[in-house]
């Protein structure tokens, strides 16, 4: 056992150290700004490779759940779900660093030092959330994640940015103080500790108490953007594209989903939740809440005019799908939720990168200006289309695999009609608002009208296109990632 520990211990320390290293690097190289982004990308890419090695050593071990003590008093928890989450976050973090190498060259108003410093700090907080051994430590880093992303959202301090980032901070910290903290402390007072354990630790509480607690967790973890608590996400779109790409499509938002999965698997225990969550017309309350959130967010998404708020509402929509899958509370459902989480992350980050590219070249952020872009940026718009189709769920791309798995989970043993119906409605809605954009991009009539064609072409091979290429490959060849995730998820002990 201990030979295994030391190997993995050093690797985990390496992973945790890399964001801190990037942050300190950003601070140290304050004087000459241009050289900051390249070393930071190298470090982040190296850390994503290290996570793959950690998964292999963990996989060779075969145990599903282990608590390791790094150094005095600091205990971390290793299990398949948080390893998948860390790999996803570190891989997409390195892609963002690659993307922002040229993005920052083009937008001079963003202060590179502040951008990289707080970006690396928030990634560090996400890693700590993933590795937290109990809910208190998780809550502490959850709060620090909201605090460290605030400067990114309000980076320029203009009036509009200040107001929306104020709403961003108040909603996140307010929800966590008023809903999340009392739920944790309720467990603390009744169980004495909140450390994660296989099969859950709170499986002696009565039925309605568990439902109330789970709803408190659902709305307390405002980062998973369930409808009443989703205001902060469209407001956070004030930030620059790489920030909203990595934080509000991947790290921050998915940490909300990750926390909900960990709570339902390792705090309450799936079997106990399945029996005790109170029913309402024989469908449990959590599914109903997710359906409501799903439908409302997709309806609002139809009427969005700006590309970023459209992507924000579609993120809320997809997150509710993840929670919808989770709310069936059986092992297959957890697998479905994790798979959908990863596929949506890859797809959404490509969309954000592509729209960032469009914004850089021609300062377009309104949907009606997207007319005829297909002709100018052929390659980028092709990748944009692939990502959009993947999120809708067309057969060969990642989205299809994850949504098919959710259908499979819904039909497993007892047919869950509510999940089926709401999922299909959401797929139709997503298809509607994405195809509306694709239609306007490849609109034949407007191909001729644009005059300055040549200006866009030569920027083709900047680091932005590279980043978009890698992430869209992720969505296209999602099958291999899917196999890998399934192998890992089989290790999870319920």
């Amino acid at each position, binding site marked *: 056992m201990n030979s295994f520990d030391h190997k993995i211990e050093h690797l985990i320390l390496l992973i945790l150290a890399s964001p801190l290293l990037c942050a300190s690097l950003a601070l140290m190289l304050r004087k000459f700004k241009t050289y900051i982004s390249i070393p930071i990308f190298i470090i982040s890419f190296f850390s994503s490779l290290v996570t793959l090695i950690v998964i292999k050593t963990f996989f060779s071990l075969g145990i599903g759940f282990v608590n390791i003590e790094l150094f005095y008093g600091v205990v971390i928890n290793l299990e398949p779900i948080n390893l998948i989450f860390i790999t996803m976050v570190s891989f997409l973090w390195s892609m963002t660093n690659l993307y922002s190498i040229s993005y920052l060259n083009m937008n001079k108003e963003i202060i590179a030092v502040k951008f990289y410093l707080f970006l690396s700090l928030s990634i560090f907080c996400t890693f700590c959330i993933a590795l937290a051994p109990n809910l208190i430590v998780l809550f502490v880093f959850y709060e620090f994640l909201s605090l460290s992303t605030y400067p990114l959202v309000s980076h320029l301090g203009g009036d509009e940015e200040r107001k929306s980032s104020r709403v961003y901070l108040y909603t996140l910290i*307010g929800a966590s103080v008023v809903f999340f903290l009392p739920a944790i402390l309720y467990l603390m007072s009744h169980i004495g500790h909140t450390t994660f354990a296989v099969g859950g630790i709170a499986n002696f509480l009565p039925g309605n108490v568990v439902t109330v607690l789970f709803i408190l967790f659902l709305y307390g973890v405002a980062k998973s953007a369930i409808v009443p608590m989703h205001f902060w996400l469209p407001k956070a779109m004030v930030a620059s594209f790489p920030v909203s790409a990595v934080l509000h499509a991947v790290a921050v938002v998915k940490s909300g989903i990750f926390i909900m999965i960990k709570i339902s698997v390792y705090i309450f225990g799936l079997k106990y939740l399945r029996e005790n969550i109170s029913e309402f017309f024989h469908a449990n309350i959590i599914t109903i809440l997710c359906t409501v959130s799903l439908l409302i967010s997709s309806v609002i998404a139809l009427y969005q005019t700006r590309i970023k708020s459209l992507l924000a509402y579609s993120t809320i929509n997809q997150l509710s799908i993840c929670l919808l899958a989770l709310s069936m509370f059986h092992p297959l459902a957890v697998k479905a939720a994790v798979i959908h989480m990863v596929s949506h992350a890859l797809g959404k980050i490509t969309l954000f990168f592509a729209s960032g590219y469009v914004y850089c070249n021609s300062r377009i952020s309104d949907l009606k200006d997207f007319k005829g872009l297909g002709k100018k940026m052929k390659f980028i718009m092709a990748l944009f289309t692939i990502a959009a189709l993947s999120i809708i769920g067309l057969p060969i791309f990642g989205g299809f695999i994850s949504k098919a798995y959710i259908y499979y989970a819904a039909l497993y043993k007892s047919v869950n009609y509510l999940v089926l119906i709401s999922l299909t409605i959401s797929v139709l809605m997503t298809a509607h608002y994405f195809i509306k954009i694709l239609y306007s991009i490849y609109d034949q009539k407007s191909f001729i009208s644009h005059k300055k064609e040549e200006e866009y072409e030569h920027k083709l091979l900047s680091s932005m296109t590279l980043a978009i290429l890698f992430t869209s490959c992720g969505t296209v060849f999602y099958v291999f990632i899917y196999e890998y995730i399934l192998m890992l998820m089989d290790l999870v002990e319920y």
Partner: protein
Amino acid sequence: MIKNLVILEMLLPILIGVSHIVNRRAHLVYLVTCITNVVVCVAAVFICIHVFQSGDMHYYFGGWLPPAGIEFKITKFNSVITCLISVISTATFLHGKNVMFDEIDISKINSFCGVFLICLAGFIGVLLTNDFFNLYVFIEISSLASYSLISISKDKSSIKAAFCYLIIGSIAATFILIGIAYIYSASGTLNIDDFISKLPNIQESNSVRIGYCLILVGILIKSGLFPLHTWLVDSYKSTNSFIVPFLNGTSSKIYIFLAINLTYLIFGIHYSFHHLNISFIFGAMGAMAIIMCSLAALYQSNLRNMLIFSTVSQIGYTFVALGLGSKASAVAAIMFLFGNILAKSSLFMLASNIYLNRRSYDMSKLHNLKSHMPIVVVLFAINGASIAGVPLTIGFSAKISLIIELIKKDMWVMLAIVLCSSLVAILYIWKFMETFLYSKAGSINDSKRKDGFGVYSERELYFPLSIIAFLTGANLICGVFFNRFAEFLNNLIL
């Protein structure tokens, strides 16, 4: 030898305080007072260490044994509080050289420092004494000294506030005196230990009950709990900004210590919570304090008024914790006490430094403080976090232990009040943080001028800021290792 340190801690300030009335050179007076403060602080630390090693210490004045003579009893609890009080007074004095010479005119400084030292001796006497009437005398000494300290200031309304404080304070002291008379008539002794041994067989007598209530009312008036807090608000609003950190850190907190001592140690939990329904009084007044004063703090545009109202609401938290009647809730109350002393005193010191730079407490003048005084803004953020209850500070661990106690006692209404008011606390701290961080829309010019238009730029304030950094560091250390800190507090009250 250690026994004489107790007297040194008490006698030295009085003798040197009196000698200041004779000494006319202001700078020499300031230096001598600093040295006395440091000596008292070192003596307090030595006594604390000695008490922790070899149990309680008794000091019989003039060799007369307890029932007749006056006795000082130094337990773990009051030796730790004495250390804290002397640390705060040393910090105020070392930090406040610029503030004092700026706010108080030279001719008054020597009598100001003299009265300050007598006030400090009075507070230490209140903490250590084990005799009821001696307690009353020391309360009067310290209050009389603090009336005159408050009246010295540039703003003329401080004299009116000092007079109101005198009237209300004397009424409170007279209530305490009548309470002592009743207890003396019932039990026949003035010595506290003797009274505790006699309490069981005189529990049913009404005069003990009346005596207890009268002393408690006197203490509540002096500690500035909500309905009786008007004197505290008026006097802190108008007095000079040198003495406010000292008074906030010591005067109202010592009476909270007395309330804890009275209800939990002298009369015991059984007597005060079953014979008399104290929990209702503390709970109701505490809840009112929390609601009214945190809302009042929200609507203040003046930085110091906001801090004063947030102090009164923090006192409300402490009494809510005291009202729960279990040992763990007493620990929570002491944590609030520590948090408020450390964080709030450093916030008041920061406010006085900001006043030195910007010559005003009003929010309209405090824009863009980040560019002129970055260290002050960082320290303000950390201490504000402790007040608001953001993780890794004492405020957070205090709030956690209070909420756990409230949940164990199923007091849901009080829980809701505590949570919403901690949300309001975040709002009013953040309101000022935002004005510090961003320049007012349109007022670009003031961000250009390097050292602002105040008298003192940050370069001259490095030494005072290092003292505040020391207090903030203590706050953070106790916050980070909060379970060891909770154990330490647990064995304070046996």
